[in-house]
């Protein structure tokens, strides 16, 4: 039973440089700001940053891990508000994803997702809509 206010189990994911290289290969997004410090600095970034689409893919896991079948997702959107800087070390950058059911109506549940790295929200207006069985 999905109810308004239900909090989904949170998930913390650590991104390291090799994760970004792996995502670049699998997605075909080889933009050098995701693996090359020199290019990231040249564009005024604080360092190599994670692909926004990798953060987006990770965030929705809070929802798809929780619902029985990920095919029940009908809508999913985010704003990329802050880049996730991934240092060239063994620790990487950790992002904690949490989610809460905001609305249940007409066989659909709307779930708000929060993504925090350090003290900062890296996604804005992240929301998934799932079919309720």
């Amino acid at each position, binding site marked *: 039973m999905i109810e308004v206010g239900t909090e989904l189990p949170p998930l913390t994911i650590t991104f390291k440089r090799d994760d970004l290289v792996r995502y670049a290969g699998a997605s075909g997004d080889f933009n050098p700001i995701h693996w090359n410090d020199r290019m990231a600095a040249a564009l005024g970034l604080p360092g190599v940053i994670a692909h*926004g689409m990798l953060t987006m893919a990770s965030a929705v896991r809070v929802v798809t891990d929780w619902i029985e079948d990920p095919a029940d997702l009908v809508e999913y*959107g985010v704003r990329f508000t802050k880049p996730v800087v991934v240092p060239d070390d063994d620790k990487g950058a950790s992002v904690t994803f949490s989610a809460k059911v905001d609305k249940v109506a007409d066989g659909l549940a709307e779930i708000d997702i929060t993504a925090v790295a350090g003290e900062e929200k890296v996604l804005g207006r992240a929301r998934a809509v799932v079919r309720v069985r």
Partner: protein
Amino acid sequence: MTIDATMVGRSYTAAGSYQVGREKIREFADAIGDGNPAYRGDDAIAPPTFGFVIGSRALEELLNDEELGLRLDRIVHGAQKFSYTRPIKAGDEIAATATITTVRKAGAVEVIMYETALTTVDGEPIATSTSTLSHNRADA
């Protein structure tokens, strides 16, 4: 050349269709660290954001339109949304068409929204991807 509101409505179709393979789905799921069994095996469906990979082939065509004068290294992905009619599945053969829906200018920054329709090659809808890009033309 530069982009302006008269370019709303321009459409770009990815060259050829994209055949979705179960091993590509598994590779993508591995790359996002997602062990969900739904993304494995002969009946695999693709993770929710996989549509962006297919849609990016239509985006490439949009970026190649010299009249828009966009440069990939000046683009920041501002927002992304997907609406799913059904999940992408192994075995699907998918056509992608990107259409510019909004162009807004704020100084040197151009905000471009485009919608990518993912359909089967027979035209059945699968998903729609809506993307917002910021393009900075400063010093261009």
